[in-house]
């Protein structure tokens, strides 16, 4: 072994020892952790949990929130009010307790310039916040959703406020019948949400763009959307349908009758996957819940359904013809793109429905049907190629048959010459 290698080895050993000493000192400096790790149950748990806490990892330890002097070994002294020790905040104090830092724009910039600092202001507008101000300590505060010790970033998949965990977190209180009894509010939201299109997308398919509770109700400022705000809430993700509804003949009567806009047809927590059967005058249709037979609305509902069904039927015929041509191996080319335009027309029509203006809808449907008919025509022309090919081959077969007959005659002649030389 060369001298240089030996020296490098010694230096590495010394560096390791030095790092060990520094780590030990850092642990020893925080007497809060040192003592609480020796304790049991509730007094030990925070010390165990804090290791993964985002604050702790950024250098804010127990004293960062609770005050006191973590350098003091004597508990009396380290947890002395004279050293700024505030102990465990009461539920009413928690929002402002967290807000000491989280509402301080300058301070928060050092850690995460992107993080909003209006959580407390938002919270005060929430139903939770308002009730807390009135002295109801059963409502959710910051720690109800984020946890107290071991707080994770919201982007951490293990965090209770990570998108896919939000429904479960909210349901921990809102699905609790005993807890919700004094407020006289339903506890079925979570079960309804699980069956909804949003719930299935978010929880089963892990589609993070699907709506969770906070997308409609807000997070820190959580409250039920007002009757006239429903379209606004839904429209955050479905802007086109919102804009169409805004100009629809339903807008005003709904407002007058205090009907909750989108929710009237689609429901709220249990928003089922939209179906074309919602439309029209069948038993499943939502239109007939308000529009009685013989009324103008009833007839218009039926017309919407008929138009949409016609577009779907023609598009399906076009799709089948394109598929037939493609499977047969004849040139389809741009017809497939045109078919996509027909399928888009169905999607656009389904959206256009939300304006409930029959003339606009009819124009769109007729445009789609014209495209579908062109696709059908183009596919039929492509399929004619098969016939042309077939005719060509039949002609060739006839020529070959003629050649066979000629050859057979020649063979017969040869045979007769052989027999009668």
């Amino acid at each position, binding site marked *: 072994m060369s001298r240089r290698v030996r020296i490098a080895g010694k230096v590495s050993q010394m560096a390791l020892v030095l790092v060990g000493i520094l780590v030990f000192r850092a642990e020893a400096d925080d007497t809060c952790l040192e003592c609480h790790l020796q304790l049991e149950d509730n007094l030990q748990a925070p010390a165990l949990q804090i290791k993964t806490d985002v604050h702790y990892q950024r250098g804010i330890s127990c004293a960062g929130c609770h005050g006191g002097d973590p350098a003091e070994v004597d508990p009396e002294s380290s947890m002395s009010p004279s050293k700024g020790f505030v102990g465990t905040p009461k539920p009413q104090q928690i929002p402002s307790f967290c807000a000491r830092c989280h509402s301080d724009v300058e301070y928060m910039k050092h850690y995460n310039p992107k993080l909003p600092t209006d959580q407390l202001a938002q919270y005060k507008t929430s139903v939770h916040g308002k009730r807390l101000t009135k002295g109801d300590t059963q409502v959710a505060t910051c720690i109800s959703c984020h946890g107290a010790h071991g707080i994770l970033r919201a982007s951490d998949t293990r965090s209770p406020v990570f998108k896919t965990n939000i429904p479960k977190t909210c349901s921990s209180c809102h699905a609790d019948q005993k807890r919700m009894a004094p407020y006289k509010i339903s506890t079925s939201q979570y079960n309804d949400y699980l069956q909804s299109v949003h719930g299935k997308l978010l929880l089963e398919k892990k589609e993070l763009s699907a709506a969770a509770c906070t997308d409609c109700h807000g997070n820190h400022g959580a409250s039920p959307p007002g009757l006239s705000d429903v379209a606004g809430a839904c429209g955050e993700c479905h802007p086109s349908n919102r804009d169409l509804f805004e100009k629809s003949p339903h807008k005003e009567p709904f407002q007058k009758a205090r009907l909750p806009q989108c929710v009237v047809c689609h429901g709220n927590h249990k928003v089922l996957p939209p179906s074309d059967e919602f439309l029209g005058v069948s038993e499943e249709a939502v239109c007939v819940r308000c529009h009685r037979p013989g009324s103008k609305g009833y007839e218009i509902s039926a017309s919407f359904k008929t138009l949409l069904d016609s577009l779907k039927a023609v598009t399906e015929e076009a799709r089948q013809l394109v598929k037939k041509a493609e499977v047969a191996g004849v*040139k389809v080319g741009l017809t497939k793109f045109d078919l996509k335009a027909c399928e888009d027309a169905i999607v656009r029509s389904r959206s256009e429905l939300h304006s409930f203006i029959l003339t606009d809808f009819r124009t769109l449907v007729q445009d789609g049907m014209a495209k579908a008919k062109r696709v059908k025509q183009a596919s039929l022309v492509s399929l004619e190629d098969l016939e042309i090919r*077939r005719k060509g081959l039949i002609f060739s077969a006839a020529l*070959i048959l003629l050649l066979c007959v000629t050859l057979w005659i020649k063979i017969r002649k040869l045979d007769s010459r052989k027999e009668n030389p």
Partner: protein
Amino acid sequence: MRFFSAVYGWVGERLNLTPLVDLIKKKSVPAHRHSLWYYTGGMTLFFFAVQVATGILLLLYYRPTAEAAYESVQFIMTEVKFGWLVRSLHSWSANLMIGALFVHMFSAFFMKAYRKPRELTWFSGAFILFLALAFGFSGYLLPWNKLAYFATKVGTDIAGEVPLLGHSVMVFLRGGEEVSGATLTRFFGFHVAILPATATFVLLLHLLLVQVQGMSVPPALEKNPNRKSIPFFPHFILRDLLGWLLALLLLVVLASIFPWELGEKADPLAPAPAGIRPEWYFLFMFQTLKLLPAEIWFVPGELVGALAFAVGGLLWVLIPLLDKNPTGRWGHWVSRLGWVVVAYMVAFTILGYLWPAGK
């Protein structure tokens, strides 16, 4: 005619063609009531020639990857001039070649053409049949469509059932645990390089043996002192040519009535479509395996079936060595057994097509 005479003269001055011409003039072929079956060999050869010609044309555009195979066949069928015709002829001719091979093999079997001294002709012919089946199996996957994909999956699964070597054979065929782009690439390699090279060699050997030993005459007619024959040229050649033309006619009629389809592109993640079945020439085996119970005694039914086919195939190949006295009592039993085999194959193939999907 003067042009041909001039060419013949020019070549004759450089190469002595007289022995060859004398041989052709002197050569004759037996003529009897079963001599029609002689032409099935020529028809098979004709289909093979069509396969080579159309295969080379397809090779100009075909791309052997999972991403491009289907699209390249689609391009051949829609954009390449007469590409649809070339592809349709290739697909139909493949099936007809195997059909003609079966007919040729059974005609040779029932006419006892395998008897001494033509054992080697039989062995080489049997080998050609296996090569043709391998051609069919490997070529079926190449368009990378849904049916082909799942048929290959089922076919290679069966290979994987064989004890000891089965799994290794399956992995070798697939190029991995699953049917994938790697399978397509190696099947392409088998189809256009390994199999054609082997087939050409064995086919030449088979033809050479036929030419050297002449056509076999059925034992019942062999001893007839008034046996007739026809000159090889032009009488037999013209009849052979007529056979080729009829084969071409059949090919064209089938291609025009039932143009070979492109199908839907394979999607390995999609569930297997109902009623998946292999090409017709494997169907009797597939149907048998389907009807076998899950376990026979304590051995998996499919394994018993696969082994039975392997043993049956081996015995069939070794018939010339087993049937030492083709005209005797044992020889008659062998012929009867042959008819049972034909009936079984036909019945199970029909059953395979009639069997309800998904059962």
